[in-house]
């Protein structure tokens, strides 16, 4: 599968818009991705290991329900195929 980044997270993946990862679950793919880009973890996850709500996630162009990807066990149960794309859109605004 591949991750596609848009917005504020790009700088944490060295501005690589698309990153291909060869694993079978969303959690394994994310772990692999964060090994490649160690700075990403703190921007992506909160201190409970959940994906921060502010990142909007899409599987093959369709929004993914938060419950399906926020915590690690849900992500482990989330299978991904070779030709899947997970798009992460992040807008962080000031007050």
């Amino acid at each position: 599968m591949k991750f596609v980044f848009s917005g504020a997270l790009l700088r944490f993946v060295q501005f690589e818009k698309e990153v291909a990862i060869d694993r079978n679950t969303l959690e394994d793919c994310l772990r692999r991705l964060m090994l490649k880009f160690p700075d990403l973890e703190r921007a992506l996850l909160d201190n409970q290991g959940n994906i921060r709500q502010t990142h909007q996630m899409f599987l093959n162009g369709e929004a993914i329900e938060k419950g399906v990807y926020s915590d690690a066990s849900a992500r482990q149960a989330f299978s991904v195929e070779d030709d899947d794309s997970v798009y992460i859109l992040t807008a962080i605004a000031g007050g």
Partner: protein
Amino acid sequence: MSQSLVKALGHQPSPEHVRRVVEELMLDFFERDVNPNSMQRDEECVCLSPRVFEQAARIGLVNFLLPAEVGGLDGSRRTFGLLLEQISYYCEDMAFPSILAMFADIPNVILQAGRPDLVEEYVVPMSQGRRFATFAFTDYGEPLFFETRVRSAGDKFLLSGEKTLQTGGALADTFLTYTRDENDDIKIFLVEKDDPGVEVSPVPTLGLRSAGLTRMVLTDVELPSRRLLFGSDGLSQSQLFLNDRRLFIVCPFVGAMKFILERCIKHLNTVIREGKPLTEMQAVQSKIGQMAIRYQTARAVLHNALDRAESNEINPLFDPVISAAKYFITEQAIALADRAVRLTGWRGYSKKLPFERYLRALMAGVTGQTAQDILEIHLGVNAIAEIELAGHKRTEP
């Protein structure tokens, strides 16, 4: 008295109905408590008095958005936005609706924590205008790298840093404070102005000088764990709050636009050049026409966005329609006030007329509730993402 506001407004009132309600129920209050000395407050950077907000609470403006079980009026965000628009038209100090929007909204965030102790201690007194809270988010670092830090110390927390600008901070006793923890996550605390190590001081600004804008310095402020409102993902909480609120900053702008337009026409009627009032000259009529177009379009955009804010179409994290409305209305309002200054000669440039004061106040929209330049970027990224996402969709075989 607050029940009369609910009764007078009814369910889903039209903008014109809201105008009549504000005129009937609030005009005396503005003329007695808000309008006197508005120019002097601006000149001397003096914040509106707390009495004004106590009275606003009695009318039902401060508890309008809160649920009935904590003493609120269960009012809708759309109606509140329409109220802010009309309040700004009728009262001569834009700081009033600006602070009001803050004081009426923050208790909802505290409520979201679902803690009965905090409802009792903060939300209920806030709904009655006995306590006020503001939003201490901005600091010298950007949100992912806030310089205001928190560390655990046994069962307590130690906060240090500086929050740079808070609306209504001079009147607030509580600051919803965003801090970065050891894991770079954001924790939100209720900081009180009297907590040891807290220093709140005024910040002189271009406009909105009676809005009690402050900075807050925290020096090893020790807080018990009950003051921790959200222990993780405060960043997302802030984005949900800001998205929802982004419209509230520009509701008063639209009311102010109408005030400026009318006041400008009245003034131009009195200025005789080449033997006739300026309003009879076509070049001036055309400029007034441009101002009217800015006002009418801004108002239409606002009302559309207020309707959307209540629909289930809204994206709760970053809604492009709401953000575009904030952006558009701000630009229209500034251009309209700028035109009023240009049309009114030395009087417009001086304190003889209120237009320079309004122009300075409206400039708040350039930076406040997300800077315009940043909104442009987010809206661009969002529009590009929509197209990219469509390209990622699977087509049925």
